[in-house]
């Protein structure tokens, strides 16, 4: 097994939003810090750094994941999707993003990226969720501005209901 010294930087190569990108990371560098400060993908936000608030949620190899609980080096070679990769191919907001805008599902927008990523994955697995299922899914996210109601409505609207 490869042993990496604690202060030794490793090259980490990822596929982020369908593009191959790489940067350097010490073993202890959190994936959030790598995405934001090494790759310049500031759309992923850090709200608690202990895995509770959900703001940093991204999709890693098809699983919605708290990126603050991952080290960058653990993700070498993996496929990531972040909020920067959500828009439709023509560069317009996708249906979920549009629904968030139309329903007022965001205010300060700090928690929004994480919620969008969880909701994206959730709707893939459960394309026609009911209200309680949406609320239940949202229990993994803290939003202090909206009171959640408009987020629930937006996700239901995005699901075509």
């Amino acid at each position, binding site marked *: 097994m490869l042993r990496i010294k604690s202060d030794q930087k490793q090259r980490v190569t990822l596929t982020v939003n369908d593009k191959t990108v790489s940067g350097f990371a*010490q073993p*202890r*560098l959190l994936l959030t810090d790598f995405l*934001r400060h090494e790759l310049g*993908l*500031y*759309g*992923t*936000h*850090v*709200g*608690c*750094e*202990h895995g*509770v*608030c959900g*703001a940093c949620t991204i999709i890693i190899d098809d699983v919605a994941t708290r990126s603050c609980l991952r080290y960058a080096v653990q993700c070498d070679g993996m496929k990531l999707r*972040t*909020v*920067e990769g*959500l*828009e439709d191919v023509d560069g317009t*907001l996708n249906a979920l*993003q549009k629904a*968030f*805008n*139309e*329903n*007022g599902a*965001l*205010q*300060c*927008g*700090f*928690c*929004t*990226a994480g919620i*969008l990523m969880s909701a994206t994955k959730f709707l893939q697995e459960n394309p026609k969720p009911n209200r309680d299922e*949406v*609320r*239940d899914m*949202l*229990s993994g*996210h*803290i*939003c*202090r*501005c*909206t*009171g*959640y*109601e*408009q*987020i*629930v409505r937006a996700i239901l609207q995005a699901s075509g209901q």
Partner: protein
Amino acid sequence: MLETETAERWIGARYPRKEDAALLTGNARFIDDLEPVAGIRHSAILRSDHAHACIVSIDTSKAAALPGVHGVVTGAAVADTIAPIPSAVRVPIKFYPIAIDKVRYVGEPVAVVVAEDRYIAEDAIELIDVVYEPLSATADPKIAMSENALLLHDDVGSNVVHHRTFRYGDPEAAFERADRVVKLDWRYPRYSSTPMETYGLIANFERQPDRYTLWSNFQGPFILHALMTGALGVPGNRLRLITAPHSGGSFGIKQAMFPYMVLLAACSRVLGCPVKWIEDRLEHLTGSSTAADRADSVEAAFAEDGELLGLKFDNVVNVGAFVRAPEPASVYRMHSASNGCYRVKNIAVENRLVVTNTTPIGLNRGYGGPQFYYALERVMEAGAKELGVDPAEIRRRNFIQPDEFPYKAPAGATYDSGDYEAGLNQAMELAAYDDLKAARENARSDGKLFGIGMAAGIEPSGSNMAYVTLAQTPEERAKAGGRSGGLGTATVSVDPSGSVTVKTVSTPAGQGHQTVAAQVVADALGLRPDQVDVITEVDTLTSAWSLASGNYANRFSSVVIGAVADAADKVAKKIKLIAAENLEVAPEDVELVGGNAQVVGVPEKALPVRRVAAQTHWHPAGLPDQMEPGLFETTIMNPEMLDAPDEQDRVASAVTFGYVFDLAAVEIDRKTGEIEIVKYVSVHDVGNVLNEIVVEGQIYGGFAHGLGGALLEELVYDAGANPQSGTFADYLCITAPEVPELTIGHFNTPSPHNTLGAKGMGDGSSMLAPIAIANAAADALGTFDIELPLTLNKNWAAANGLPYARAGSAKAKVGGGPREADNFEGGLTGDGSVELSAPPEEVWKLLLDPDTLAAVVPGCEELNQVGEDSFTAEVTIGVAGIKGVYSAEINLRDKIDAQSLRLVGKASGALGFGQGEGNVTLEAAGDSRTRLNYSYRANVGGKVAAVGQRMLGTVTKLLIGQFFRGFDRRLKSSGAGQTSRKGFFGRLFGGRDA
């Protein structure tokens, strides 16, 4: 070419927000996304893990020597660089943003490390060796104000740092003629709106020209700029504050980052480099700011017919360890509206501010409102019960009537407009109140705990900066010179291309200021909102700003938007004048519609607004006579009613007064204590609605905050003032499944105090939901003697007539120095027993054998005997992902050979400290076996207590189990101990300390 010909009105429309696209695509930039200056270094702050202690020494040498560390700044260096931060009240307290020789709360900054990156900075703070001499501490204001309490600030001579009484009307006579007097007293818990984005800033000191620049997510009020320049010792133009384009929530909390701005500015100066600091969540939950917890009481005098004759408020505010500006404002924000929605004229108020060993308080959504309404709206409900009238009816009987507006409140507020009874009636209808009461009867006849509660309140918005000076006596105010006002500023400009830009200096954190300002300006200029760009951030060197600038007290829709409308109006007038000359008509005949300046009634006679506006830049000589070139209009307006307080302590504290009426119905499960909100209705008067999406968002959001305060959220301190809620697993924010369905109603009365007829409305149910729900719970439980948050344990106890665990009920020891392990209330306790495979004599021997113990104590690195019955140990223990080395001292007491002993110990490390004691007894269990019984109790402080509270009990049990398994193995293999004696329970206490 003409752009469009349809006249549209944007204000009031359900216009989706302009801000959203950037936020939904990851393009919005927050403070941690900015690198505004080259050469930024990163900082981490070492914080006190003691609630109260003298700093004996700080050794930073190891930290400074760590590769990558640029420098370490301690309180001494800061005190050499800056002056104390001025206070809003005259008290002899030197408030520095870092501890100088004493720490007064857990989380108070002690040293700042600046390094290449945050990781190294955090490594380095663990290498700083601080020796503390602990003092007794309390988080409880009632204890802190008692006679023998240890003082936090010796020079004040008391922990009560502010005390004033007020009288309006004739309260004594009112109470004398009352038929009924109702009194309640209670604790209001400490909680916070915890924005998802924590504090963040970059501080840069330039030696030439001796100027500080701070980029931050500070929310204002910018009156605090004056305090910062006071501390930094520079004129206003040498402290440049720039706010980030986006802020991840503020709710008032980001007001209190100004001491950190001063601290990091000082660090930048001391170390000669730009310094960045991004607060982490633990820092936020222990070292930022919170709403006030209070220990209040209220008395209400009623006539038999339900008329409210008089009110007496006795407010005890736990202000935290310092009176950080703008405190004591939290207890004065509602003061001039102490009558609430009612016609009562006779009011007495007594305010005391008490310092305790807790985080200083500050602005938080509803600022002082929840605490005030917890008094007023519960005593109204209690009065209704006492008089046997319906709680809705007692409010109806006392409401200010629609024809009484503008209404001059006894303590000085001028209510602009309202129809409180109509709002109540609408709520009754939306709630189907009669059906709800029938449901209550049914539920009760089935033995269920079902209750209905309500709360009514006005929502003051657009603060008068002068209300804070109520903290001074009229004489002191006269001496200090006049204070009044709450300036709103805005700039509307059109550049040479004809594009419109608005500057609001309103530092929003999600309230949609860009959208609403664009709607207003679009209406004035005949454009679409997407054609108007809005810049909301502040740059104190380039913006038109004033003391009241910022985002707080619902001031955007009550004040700022008026300034925006005014500036847009000036621009529109100028455009009309130019167009009139070009179109050869009178200016009154020109209207701005659909992107054009056109002649009223002759739409084909028109010029594009863009072209007319551009003329002011491209062809000034062709402008009408006397007209100034360019289009750049700034409005600075002061709402005229915002005067200075008068000699009777009356002040018009705010510009607009919205209204909220909330009704809740709850059912409490007697078996589990679970509280279900069966119905929740909230009716609002927000004046004219500027944007439905924004208004609705504020109402839902405010409701969720109120719900959090009612049901879950509390920043808990133990009896030794150690914070216990350092993570979002301990501080429980409301999440989606806990939010019940909310029925919203509106009964809007346009405000005459605002050009657009709008009112401030951001606090809403954050002020009233805690009270409506508390009233409903009181109705369900049959007692007002309850306390928020209504957690399962409390509800269950109340439902079953059992002792009630209250905020502030922990009895900490006060006075004198701390004694060894003298105070365990609220601490960690446990007991158990194990059976061991040797007779008591052998167990005893082995138990006191240092080598054995060193081998079997989990994580023991070293164990030494330092005296007859004294030992030291180094133990590594991890709790909740926090692993650290602790140095323990253990003493054995009351030894009775082979029978029993008592251990007293303490341990400390970079991650926390603890003290405790344990008792061990041995008894023969036949067949050469021993039954060992143990019990322990301990208090734990520091980071490990704040983040690991939930795990401490479990970890302790795990470690004890691990210890005895190892010990028993050793017993079996060795058969007997060796000779030396040791403190075995070092591990045990290390364990709980860990």
